[in-house]
């Protein structure tokens, strides 16, 4: 029997047992649904992660730290008793080994390095806006990254690769919204950062000796934090973006200004000229990976944009794998469903099989007929599951995007090719499951099968 004829006969005999066919294929549909969802979520997450990285990280940039972030020596987690270290910085409840000026210079000397930008932590006590007199706010302050061009709501940004001016600042659109002032009205006005330098705590002996000498003004001076107001002119208001991390949450100042302010804030403290991390930019025609190797030779830990992407993709793949695992479990269950249904079908149609064999049909063609039936069940289940996933995905996608606040990005992305591949794979799985009952059919003795008594 030709393949086409077998396929048609298989399809017709399934149509004659509609309820059974549908129920069996629904079991596969559950697996197909879960797998389609996991593929869609994986595709969506990777696309989104890719966008995130592209709009936040220059592909030529390398992020360096003194040691690997999750290294056991950089004790993670807040609280607990930790060993004090001269070269370590406390930040956000974590202890980091820091990069010093020497490290930075070592990296600067590597061939292929365009520039090294240490990460400055500039914590302003408060910020105030010229437009809103008398009110104080708190906000994060970061260095403007000239390698990634942000969208602006108002004002202008310098061309790619150029820093903003030393006395300029870029603020996010969300701040303007919060203040209730149109973005274009903010441009050109002033933001003042109030910096407060925590003085070194004088020791008891120091205070005693000052007290004894009667220099109370000196004690007060030592105990009062030194403050400084830094007025900066708003150059631009960056547009809200669902893919840019910092563009929507922090104030941007130039690297020179950041260096200057950091100098003020840390001079005389233990943190002076010590950095948790730094961003290295490789020259245009240099592979960041080779720079990374050079940095690591100098006992620092480096991560390229590609590493970061790999890190995120690893997490996405893991999560996707877990979801897909459930789908595979559902599929395994449905495989037994197919085997069972097809065994019943073979039993029911013993005479029909006997007739076909009597008429000269080859055993392997009989087997093929029943395997094709199983393949049809797989196809039906796959299509039902995929369509269901696609339909439900289309319905819940906007809702998912809104609760994850990723704007117009979609977390479930359905692509035709992988889904078609999945359906073909399901047909193959169904055919393999159908092999056992089909073999029984193929081995049937026509004389026995056609015995009327």
């Amino acid at each position, binding site marked *: *029997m*030709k393949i086409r*004829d077998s396929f048609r*006969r298989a399809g*017709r*005999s399934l149509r*004659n047992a509609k309820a059974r066919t549908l129920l069996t294929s629904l079991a596969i549909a559950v697996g197909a649904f879960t797998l389609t969802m996991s593929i869609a979520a994986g595709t969506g997450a990777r696309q989104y992660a890719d966008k995130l990285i592209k709009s936040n990280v220059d592909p030529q940039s390398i992020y360096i730290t003194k040691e690997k972030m999750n290294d056991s020596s950089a004790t993670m987690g807040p609280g607990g008793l930790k060993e004090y270290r001269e070269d370590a910085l406390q930040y956000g409840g974590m202890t980091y080994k820091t990069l010093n000026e020497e490290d930075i210079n070592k990296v600067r000397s590597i061939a292929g390095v365009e520039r090294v930008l240490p990460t400055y932590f500039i914590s302003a006590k408060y910020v105030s806006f010229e437009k809103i007199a008398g009110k104080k706010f708190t906000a994060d302050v970061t260095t403007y990254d000239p390698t990634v061009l942000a969208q602006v709501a108002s004002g202008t940004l310098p061309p790619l690769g150029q820093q903003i001016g030393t006395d300029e600042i870029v603020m996010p659109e969300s701040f303007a919204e919060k203040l209730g002032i149109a973005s274009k009205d903010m441009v050109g006005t002033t933001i003042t950062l109030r910096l407060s330098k925590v003085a070194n705590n004088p020791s008891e002996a120091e205070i005693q000796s000052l007290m004894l000498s009667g220099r109370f003004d000196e004690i007060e001076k030592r105990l009062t934090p030194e403050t400084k107001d830094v007025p900066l002119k708003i150059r631009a208001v960056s547009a809200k973006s669902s893919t840019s991390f910092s563009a929507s949450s922090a104030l941007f100042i130039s690297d020179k200004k950041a260096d200057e302010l950091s100098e003020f804030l840390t001079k005389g403290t233990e943190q002076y000229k010590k950095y948790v991390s730094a961003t290295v930019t490789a020259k245009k025609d240099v592979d960041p990976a080779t720079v990374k190797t050079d940095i690591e030779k100098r006992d620092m830990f480096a991560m390229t944009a590609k590493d970061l992407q790999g890190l995120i993709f690893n997490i996405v793949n893991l999560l996707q794998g877990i979801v897909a695992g459930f789908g595979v479990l559902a599929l395994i269950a449905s495989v037994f469903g197919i085997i069972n249904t097809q065994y019943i079908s073979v039993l029911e149609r013993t*005479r*029909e099989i*006997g*007739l*076909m*064999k*009597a*008429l*000269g*049909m*080859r*055993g392997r*063609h009989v087997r093929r007929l029943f395997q094709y039936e199983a393949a049809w069940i797989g196809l039906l289940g796959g299509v039902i599951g995929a369509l269901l996933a696609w339909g439900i995905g289309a319905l819940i996608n906007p809702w998912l995007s809104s609760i994850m606040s990723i704007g117009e990005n979609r977390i479930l992305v359905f692509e035709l090719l992988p889904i078609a591949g999945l359906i073909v794979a399901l047909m193959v799985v169904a055919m393999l499951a159908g092999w056992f009952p089909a073999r029984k059919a193929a081995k049937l003795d*026509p*004389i026995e099968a*056609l015995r*009327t008594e």
Partner: protein
Amino acid sequence: MGKMIQVTGIGKVYGKKEQSFTALDNVTFTVPEGASVAIVGKSGSGKSTLMHIMSGLDRPTSGAVVVDEQDISSMKAKEIDSFRAQKIGFIFQSFFVQANETCYNNVALPLEIALIGGAKRKQRVLTALKQVELDDKVNQKAANLSGGQKQRLAIARAIVNVPRIIFADEPTGNLDTVTGEKIEQLLFGFNRKLGSTLVIVTHDDDLAARCDMQVHIKDGRITEITHRKAGKK
């Protein structure tokens, strides 16, 4: 006239040693080409086993069967399958039509197995259905047919591939006299028109008497071979 079927000293034994049962014992006869033969015997006489062996559905324990100059007792399974598909038509007491398939697809089955497709298949199926007067039921499901119509459908299926031999196992056993008569007329008609050799297995003496030749079987042995007297049909 050539020899269509030559059965030489065949035996069939089921089971082993003490529990063995001899279904056929040293059966020898020859069927001429285009003849109609009745294999007559009571149930359990071995007549069905003989038919299975002659049609290549079963193998004899001993002896040889030569059909249309081919020794089917020494063929490989694959060759026998193809032999049946090309040269044999079957009609059964219980019809064995595919109830859920249309008349067209029932009759198309042997052609699909014999790898005959396209326009040739369609033309042959429609001709066969016309010959058994079922051309008004082409797209009806076989389940909707009466007993007589089902057996006519089975005949159409048996003749569609123009077989050299048609085997009919109690073809009228499940039918009333009038309907059975019609089926007999069709079978003998095709035997004459197409020149197909007709082998009927029956215990109905009247039906057997209409055949050119009667092979009587009892307890696995031929007791008598008779021939129809000229003119009596």
